[in-house]
């Protein structure tokens, strides 16, 4: 019987993989459902096994069974791993994703699974924490805090009950690495959490998954049941979110698990000392925890040799939006934004010029192609007025209206604000209003107002109770927008209100022409 491999990943299914799988089953093939390889322009992808080799075909429809099986299908790709998109990657965390049956314990064990956990359990907890520290692994959720340092704090905290919490509330648009890993290699995350449990002395863990990821929830629940004996005495359970973006913020997430409104807590106390149910808690992103098995199995050195500056190891970069070859590209830090977008992503899907990319989700900055030489590195991005976040890159072509995107950033913050702090709750709503005035003023092309004093603008722009006295001119409203962003950035309790100014101000700074101001002088191309 011919064996074929077809992805069960939510993205592949959205593109019709289930129908394709049924067609191959009807033709008498043995169909193995894997995770996704991570390149969506070739999905639904079918790999036919032939003498131990897999020959890929994609995209494939249900009517293509015969031509795929006799090898004459025009979308024959050969060995998928040899495609340029995959050959250039350094897959540490996603090594198994797309290759194995995600819910087969046998497959997992045969592909180096559990080696990290076995190595960790043969070591004292402090040695495990030291290995994670030595690897240089930093929080992959966005903040980039050293994972080993966090674990050290929890290890040293005295308590009978400690918890491992996995943040799988991947709400940022343009990111899907957590989802792909949970669907494509769930045992890897389970292994990472069991290692964390051993390292800090925690007996129970929670995986908080957003409700928008039904496939990941099902895969994780099944994988936990299958591997319970293997990770014992450590235990795990899945908690399902309920559509609140802010629950991706670690303290809001803890409150949500506790059964409360997902509101942000003030820090200190740090969750590492008083986290879930007031107990010391390791809370890490999916990708941080999933990187740990490799580090323990191959050694901290193997992980730390890859990277750039203080950003060590690999980052699963996600190419999204209007991009030709979108997908997951795991690579060592240091690759430039331009290489990712143009060389690997192939530019826009629409064929029009790239105008902007947003890195790091709804709270990340917009960058113009003029900044594409920026290396992928936490510090370099911070210096450029942005952030890596969860390493999602959303590509926009030249039809994008950046003032509209700035307005959307404010609108999103207003919808998702937890309401606890004023700059975020009120500021975002006021921000939408200011952006509406800027867009209206830009579109009506007003006369340039006479020179006035700066404070005067703010004063007049702020007269919200007497609308006829508001200066709705571009200059006054732009000044007000900057002032508002300043308040939100420095006055908000968490990253939602605090980082919403990144997309707003970066749009304003790099694309002033969309805000009715003169375009910046373009630097000469090389």
């Amino acid at each position, binding site marked *: 019987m011919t064996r074929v491999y077809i992805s069960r990943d939510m*993205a592949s299914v959205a593109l019709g993989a289930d129908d394709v799988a049924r067609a191959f089953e009807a033709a008498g093939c043995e169909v193995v459902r894997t995770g996704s390889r991570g390149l969506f322009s070739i999905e639904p992808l079918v790999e036919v096994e032939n003498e131990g080799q897999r020959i890929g075909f994609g995209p494939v429809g249900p009517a293509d069974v015969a031509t795929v099986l006799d090898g004459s299908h025009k979308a024959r790709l050969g060995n998928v791993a040899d495609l340029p998109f995959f050959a250039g990657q350094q897959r540490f965390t996603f090594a198994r994703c797309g290759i194995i049956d995600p819910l087969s314990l046998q497959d997992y064990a045969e592909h180096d699974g559990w080696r990290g956990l076995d190595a960790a359990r043969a070591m004292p907890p402090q040695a495990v924490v030291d290995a994670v520290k030595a690897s240089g692994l930093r929080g992959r959720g966005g903040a980039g805090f050293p994972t080993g340092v966090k674990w050290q704090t929890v290890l040293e905290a005295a308590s009978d009950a400690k918890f491992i919490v996995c943040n799988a509330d991947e709400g940022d648009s343009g*990111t899907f690495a957590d989802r792909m890993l949970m669907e494509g290699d769930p045992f890897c995350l389970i292994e990472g959490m069991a290692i964390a449990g051993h390292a800090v002395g925690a007996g129970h863990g929670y995986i908080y998954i957003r*409700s*928008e990821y039904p496939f990941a929830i099902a895969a994780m629940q099944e994988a936990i049941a299958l591997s319970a004996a293997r990770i014992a005495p450590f235990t795990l359970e899945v908690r399902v979110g309920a559509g609140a973006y802010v629950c991706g913020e670690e303290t809001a997430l803890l409150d949500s698990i506790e*059964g*409360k409104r997902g*509101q942000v807590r003030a820090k200190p106390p740090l969750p590492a000392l008083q986290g879930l149910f007031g107990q010391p808690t390791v809370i890490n992103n999916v990708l941080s925890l999933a990187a740990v098995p490799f580090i323990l199995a191959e050694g901290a050195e193997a992980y730390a040799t890859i990277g750039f500056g203080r950003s060590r190891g690999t980052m699963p970069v996600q190419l999204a939006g209007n991009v030709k070859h979108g*997908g997951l590209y795991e690579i060592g830090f240091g690759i430039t934004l331009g290489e990712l977008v143009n060389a690997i992503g192939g530019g826009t899907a629409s064929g029009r010029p790239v105008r902007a990319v947003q890195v790091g989700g709804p709270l990340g900055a917009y960058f113009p192609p003029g900044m594409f030489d920026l290396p992928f590195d936490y510090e370099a991005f911070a210096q450029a007025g942005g952030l890596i976040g969860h390493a*999602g890159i*959303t590509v926009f072509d030249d039809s994008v209206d950046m003032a509209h995107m700035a307005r959307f950033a404010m609108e999103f913050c207003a919808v998702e604000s937890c309401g606890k702090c004023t700059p975020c709750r009120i500021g975002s709503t006021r921000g939408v209003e200011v952006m509406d005035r800027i867009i209206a003023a830009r579109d009506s092309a007003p006369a340039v107002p006479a020179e006035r004093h700066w404070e005067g603008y703010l004063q007049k722009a702020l007269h919200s109770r007497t609308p006829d006295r508001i200066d709705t001119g571009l200059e006054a409203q732009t000044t007000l927008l900057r002032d508002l962003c300043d308040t939100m950035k420095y006055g908000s309790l968490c990253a939602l209100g605090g980082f919403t100014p990144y997309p707003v101000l970066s749009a304003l700074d790099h694309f002033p022409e969309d805000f009715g101001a003169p375009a910046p002088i373009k630097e000469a191309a090389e």
Partner: protein
Amino acid sequence: MQQEDTVRLIEDWTKTHGRTRDRLLPLLHMLQEEIGFIDDAAIPAIAKNLNLSRADVHGVVTFYHDFRRAPAGRHVVKFCRAESCQARGAAAMEKAAAERLGVPMGETRPDGQVTLEPIYCLGLCAIGPNALVDGRPVARIDTAALERIAQEIAA
């Protein structure tokens, strides 16, 4: 479902799953799964079984976007409006969807056949515009795909 059935559902569930506060979200998910929405009339029973105040339960129900306080239409279309889908023309498709399905975003059609809701990211960001149609993911939505969705909903 009758009021007493809802109360029994809550009591039975808490008997097997526990009555601690952290059971609140799983309980609300279960109720929504079983009944389709969180009835205001169920809040006193939830509060009693988990030893919380009614105000506390109300606060949690209203905080999370997922929990409905009124029944949805027979079909639910959740249309993504996040940035990556916008970069692929989601705004225009959203407008077309509202027109073709005959219901504004965020509302249920008067005949109760369909609810159209916004969702912020399904994690299918390289193949947008995306939607969940009765829980099934649909990618690369264009006019033809929209027509198929509309047919499905009319049936």
